[in-house]
């Protein structure tokens, strides 16, 4: 089985995050980390192959971690290798900077297609959101780019290698569903069901020296006009730090706080 896990390197959400003057998020700081939700995606990918040990004589499984991002994003790949991924692929090209979610999906799609052409990919796993932009657009966009079925926000994934199908369980805003589709597919996972493993120390050491394959736009056959700022169909015009909420009240309860709060709510029209 060959599984590709999409991982993103993002600014740590506990850190002081900022936008640059050109409207792009400041990236590449020391606090940047592997998007936590992609650790769950990798965990799901690892469990998928672990559930089906290769038969005698079959090719070993391959779990590829794939990222599109600046040079520093290699750290996300190393973390993925430490957790147990077997291959790391980094799409690195100055022309990628400024890509919005859809342009990013085009680059990821070209990279998955290139890997698929070399040796078939069965499942692409993505996280439920990048904790930077929080758009949750990329997985569905990637499925559209590849023209593969999408099974998103799964909290259970079972592959049937013989039937070449995958079944997922997911909760939507209105229902709990079980869906199936033929391989290859794009799945995304929630943060509920795949609590990520900690890398072993030996894994961390090995990951430091493991090779990382770097691909640029030319290698993917991508026209630079379709990616980056010029290939994006959204343009940030302005970003600004929000002012604190004005007129904030903080009281310590002396037994009367509930009454005062009832007054406040009445004044706001809620009671």
């Amino acid at each position, binding site marked *: 089985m060959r599984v590709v896990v999409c991982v993103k390197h993002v600014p740590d*959400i*506990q850190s002081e995050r900022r*936008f640059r003057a050109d*409207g792009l998020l400041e990236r590449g700081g020391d606090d940047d980390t592997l998007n936590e*939700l992609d650790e769950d995606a990798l965990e799901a990918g690892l469990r998928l192959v672990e559930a089906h040990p290769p038969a005698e004589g079959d090719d070993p499984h391959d779990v590829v971690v794939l990222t599109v991002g600046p040079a520093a994003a290699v750290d996300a790949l190393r973390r993925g290798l430490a957790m147990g991924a077997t291959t790391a692929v980094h799409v690195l090209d100055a022309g990628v900077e400024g890509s*919005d*979610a*859809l342009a990013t999906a085009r680059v990821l799609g070209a990279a998955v297609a290139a890997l698929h052409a070399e040796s078939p990919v069965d499942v692409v796993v993505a996280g*439920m959101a990048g904790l930077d932009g*929080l*758009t*949750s*657009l*990329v*997985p*569905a*966009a990637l*499925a*559209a780019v590849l023209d593969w079925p*999408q099974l*998103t926000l799964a909290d259970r994934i079972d592959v049937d290698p013989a039937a070449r199908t995958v*079944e997922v369980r997911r909760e*939507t*805003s*209105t*229902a*709990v*569903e*079980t*869906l*199936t*589709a*033929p391989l290859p597919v794009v799945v995304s996972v929630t*943060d*509920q069901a795949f609590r990520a493993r900690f890398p072993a120390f030996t894994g961390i050491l090995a990951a430091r020296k493991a090779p990382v394959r770097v691909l640029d736009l030319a290698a993917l056959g991508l026209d630079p006009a379709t990616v980056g700022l010029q290939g994006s*169909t*959204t*343009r*940030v*015009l*302005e*970003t*600004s*730090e929000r002012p604190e*909420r004005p*007129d*904030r009240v*903080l009281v*310590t*309860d002396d*037994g009367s*706080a*509930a009454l005062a*709060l*009832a007054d*406040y*709510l009445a004044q*706001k029209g*809620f*009671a």
Partner: protein
Amino acid sequence: MSTTVLVLVDHEGARVHPTATELLTLARSLADDVRAVWIDEGPTGPDAAARELLGRFGASGVVPVQVTGADPHLTATVVDGLRAVLGAVPASLLLLGSTFEDREVAARLAVLTGGGVVTGATTVVRDGDGRFVAGKEVLAGSWSSRCAITGDLAVVTVKPHSTQAVPVDAPVAAVAAEPVVVEASAAARAVTVVERAPRPASDRPSLADAEVVVVGGRGTNGDFAPLEELADVLGGAVGATRVATDEGWIGHEAQVGQTGVTISPRLYVGAGVSGAVHHRGGMDAAVTVVAVNEDPDAPIFEFADYGIVGDLTEVVPALTQELRRRREARAGS
């Protein structure tokens, strides 16, 4: 040149979801021609009551859509329907809600049409060049941004309550156009629904669109009953932090935050909630934030409009009781 704006109507059977009235109100501020898109299992479209409602909030017409051969709730199916509508009714903007499903529809549609997407917008305006510009809160509510959409089709997912639904002056029921009936694409047909169990309906408003949300965290110690009572007097919904859902104190669908439901109520009440950044990212669009926490240094007090340092097991029931007392006094007078 006249502009047409499409609004994807969220509905369960004949019942129109309240977000549709907000989206129609917003759409009206951007174009004269506003069409409601009604995707359903059959081609008949909304009933008279629903058409009256859609018309009252500004839909000049309804486009009933049926996609045959695939499950109507799947993202790919909905997108098949929308593409067919766009073929019949050229539009420059599509507005839809902000659930995960809506965002996926937006992503797929934009990829297939060369459009551009902004998710979780709270404002949409048109600039001097005729481009649609969406405003939203980003980085867990600590920054705002404005983003222009340059693609052929602007697709904007809008947060609940960011526009107040206002009826038109002289309402007329929206006229249903000829239904658009299309066959599902291979992508939609590739996915099979083995099982779908609708969530049991609750008497409380749904979390995502409630005007008032009472959220409980670890500080509740698992007892959500006082929060439910408070939510009931305020006519609101109950939400939770991930700690509370992980503990199994309440269902996972109640989780508010970056990886749970995004809420934008008029009133948020957090009890025993620390205000972690993951949580804040899903609620910072709330208009008024009230917090009860026994720790004066809890981060939630940095962004609460009204904070009480105190024990929620005392403050919350006392508040509920006081609100009830006032209501009864009003009813009695």
